């Protein structure tokens, strides 16, 4: 049983807007194991960013936590003071943002920006911190680090800036790294480099990562476990193989089915738009867009049904006595592959 480093229970977050209360996060529970990478996938506005921001205490001013618990080292992060937060942020929990072009202070030397958390948290002298900053710059693969440490952000490319942001996040060797779409703003080749870098540094620093993305391709290469989020709720979560090859929730089917493959001639999509969270639906929020939806989906919210010890999905299709439905062809193909994989595993174990 892996050790849990973070436990989020029944998290509820509202946003005050002129139009009313937007129920952005509605009863989200998950945990993060030591050393693993948990990917949270979902479309824009599904609440992935809000969820991670609550873990580092950087919610927007109009956000209000309506309930729940975030358990980290026996402390509930939703209860602690701003002073305590300042000791955790950048030290035990660090964050990487989406856009490297705007994440760095344009008027401060790179070295100072990387050294800053170390000076703040570990009481390092400027000299020590800069030495460590140089080491980090080398670790994240910045050539000529000795010279470039005195340069400013505008002298670096997007990919290099994201490497610097990673260096800043990891300099205090945090236990948890929150990565909010860290490669979305980068082009594809640079994206792959950054993902590789994050994986290798994760081993070195021994950090757990919560990785937010809407790109399933990135998830496949990066994550140990995956949680699928929709309209402020988790729909399904499991190991990366379980989500990719044995998906159970129709929303996950839709997501996987809309990934282009080498064989696909058309680009599939999920029709419709997410529900208005000012007035969230009573039942399964995905029901209106779900062609497999049953009457009960609209009436009652499905609980999480257990698929395996690590795999849960919130869909009435898994309820005992639910009708068998034919998922899209691509999903059926994956299910077959999953069975083969399981049989192979058994053979290997014996």
């Amino acid at each position, binding site marked *: 049983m892996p050790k849990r480093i973070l436990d989020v229970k029944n998290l509820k977050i509202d946003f005050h807007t002129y139009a009313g209360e937007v129920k952005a996060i509605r009863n989200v529970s998950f945990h993060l194991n030591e050393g693993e990478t948990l990917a949270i996938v979902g479309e824009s506005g599904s609440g992935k960013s809000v969820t991670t921001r609550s873990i580092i205490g950087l919610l927007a001013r109009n956000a209000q936590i309506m309930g729940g618990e975030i358990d980290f080292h026996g402390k509930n992060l939703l209860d602690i003071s701003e002073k305590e937060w300042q000791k955790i*942020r950048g030290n035990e929990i660090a964050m990487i943002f989406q856009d490297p072009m*705007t*994440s760095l202070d344009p008027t401060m030397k790179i070295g100072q920006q990387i050294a800053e958390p170390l000076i703040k948290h570990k009481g390092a002298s400027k000299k020590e911190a800069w030495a460590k900053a140089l080491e980090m710059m080398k670790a994240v693969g910045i050539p000529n680090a000795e010279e470039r440490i005195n340069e400013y952000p505008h002298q670096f490319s997007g990919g290099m800036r994201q490497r610097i942001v990673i260096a800043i996040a990891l300099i205090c060797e945090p236990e948890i790294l929150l990565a909010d779409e860290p490669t979305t703003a980068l082009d594809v080749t640079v994206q792959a480099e950054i993902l590789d870098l994050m994986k290798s540094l994760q081993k070195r620093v021994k950090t757990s990562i919560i990785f937010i993305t809407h790109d399933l391709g990135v998830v496949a290469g990066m994550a140990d476990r995956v949680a699928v989020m929709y309209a402020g709720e988790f729909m399904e979560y499991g190991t990366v193989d379980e989500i990719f090859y044995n998906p159970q929730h129709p929303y996950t089917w839709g997501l996987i089915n809309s990934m282009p493959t080498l064989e696909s001639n058309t680009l599939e999509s999920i029709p419709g738009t997410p529900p208005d969270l000012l007035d969230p639906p009573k039942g399964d929020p995905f029901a209106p867009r779900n062609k497999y939806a049953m009457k009960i989906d609209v009436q009652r919210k499905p609980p999480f049904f257990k698929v395996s010890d690590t795999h849960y999905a919130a869909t009435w299709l898994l309820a005992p006595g639910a009708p068998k439905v034919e998922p899209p062809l691509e999903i059926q193909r994956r299910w077959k592959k999953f069975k083969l994989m399981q049989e192979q595993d058994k053979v290997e174990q014996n």
Partner: protein
Amino acid sequence: MAKYLLKRILYMILTLFVVATATFFLMKLMPGSPYANEAKMTPTQLKIMNEQYGLNKPVWLQYLIYIGGMLHGNFGTSFQYSNQPVSSLIASRLGASCQLGLQALILGVVLGVIIGAIAAMRQGTWVDSTATVFAIIGKSVPNFVLAVLLQYYIGLKLGWFPIAGWGQFSETILPTIALAVGPLAETARFIRTSMVDTLSSDYIELGKAKGLSRIEVIRKHAMRNSVIPLVTLIGPYAVALMTGSMVIENIFNIPGIGEQFVKSILTNDYPTIMGITMVYCIGLVIVLLITDIVYGLIDPRIRLAGNED
């Protein structure tokens, strides 16, 4: 950098030359003559006077003579105060204007930055709204109206400071306040906007994610980035304030250069008009150069652009 500076200085000289030329000919188009009682003068007297001041020569020749003199640092002799060189006339008056302007600039900008920053940090609260209302009032009330109000209420009714005059520091307080309110309001509004913008940027978020406190984030990351656009604003303000405000100097009876400028225009005192215009202009181009250099010091992105130039 040296190449850049040299280029800038050449441009400055060119600018001064163009301004001198334009002002010279425009000035000659003004109606009237420098003589107070021209109607009573005989043609012979007029001729002698014109010869004495060199006004009998064709305008283009006068222009060449003037430019020639200027190149040698000779700005001519005032018509109004006979035998007093324009340069010493300006020198005797520039000090008061500079002191007053500098005081007003420092007061206005420092207070403006503080008020603007506080308003931005308390964005959307009553502090912010109050600051905005005062900024709008400060910007829209003309400084001479304010000057008179200050004289009446603070000078006369309360008797805290002298109403007018020049010599003691206490006499500079009311005109300094009157002059400072405009730049103060403008700076506060400017910094507030700029700071709100900066505070919503990603690197401020990253600063917080590093574990910095609110004050640290503002001190280390927000301040410098918010002040950059202000540098552009301060340059021309500095010149305008330091070369004097004609109206304020008149109201407070301050022997500054602004007051002298008005007098010289009213009396067609050509050399003085030219002299003061050139002082204004020299001040402006120098301040603009300093602004650009300071810009580069605060913002590394501009430093690079200067080098590539």
